[in-house]
């Protein structure tokens, strides 16, 4: 291991902004993308439920 202390690690030899700027934005992307995909999946399911409910309602009215 090449780090003497935690402060030395975070300083990245004076290149902290570049190194952490790269990894922070990457981490942000890898967290946000799955959240967006999950929201899209939930939206699709919600839409299906609405349609399913509407279809059943129409069916009941037709039967009545």
């Amino acid at each position, binding site marked *: 291991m090449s780090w003497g202390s935690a402060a030395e690690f975070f300083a990245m*030899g004076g290149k902290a902004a570049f190194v952490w700027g790269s990894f922070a934005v990457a981490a942000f992307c890898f967290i946000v993308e799955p959240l967006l995909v999950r929201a899209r999946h939930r939206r699709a399911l919600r839409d299906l439920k609405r349609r399913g409910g509407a279809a*059943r309602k129409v069916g009941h009215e037709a039967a009545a």
Partner: protein
Amino acid sequence: MSKRLINWFRFSSPQAFYGPAGRMIPWFAAAAAILAAIGLYIGFFVAPTDAQQGEAYRIIFIHVPASWMSMFVYLVMAGWAGLGLVLNSRLSGMMASALAPTGAMFAFLSLWTGALWGKPTWGTYWVWDARLTSELILFFLYVGFIALQAAIDDPRRADKAGAVLALVGVVNIPIIYFSVQWWNTLHQGASVSLTRSPSMATTMLTGMLVMALAAWLYAIAVSLARVRAIILERERHSGWVHELKEAAA
């Protein structure tokens, strides 16, 4: 005889693919997370400081995997799009659409981390050099593919138009890959090649490859998740999606 063969075409139907895809996602996601943790550990705690670049070189552990994936995802996306064009299979177009945003994200990360690596090593965030410019074009191809598909209401026509764009754009991939050989550029040559031994320390190489594998598994997990959402969106008029337990009102 035919009974012993798995009918792979069965999985080309969105209905047959939806369930198995969902069961695969947690495995790919978990493997990606574990490999990313190992890769980051190697990259930050095992790999030594670079003699020329100091610590700034550690950007390599995200920059190279992101760049590789941006090109690889494009090839897979164009492959699915081409398959959809030839076989007219419904799932192919959905796969291509599901891969595009992930590919665009990797292309963006490649450019972003490349800029932040360029400043401390070359003294500039950006130059109009062959490697950088062709990677920027790759990003625009992804964005163009997404925008084109979004602009066409009929999903089957959107698939066809997108497929043509994706296939024409494939020409850009070898241009990116060989740009550092074909032109005199500021960007360094390939660190890893199939024909000669890598020009870097073993621990650096290991960390990079582990991170690349993590990125690969992440891309699989997130695009499987996205294709499931796309399947639900596009199959909303068919009966089977309404019979899903999770869609029951």
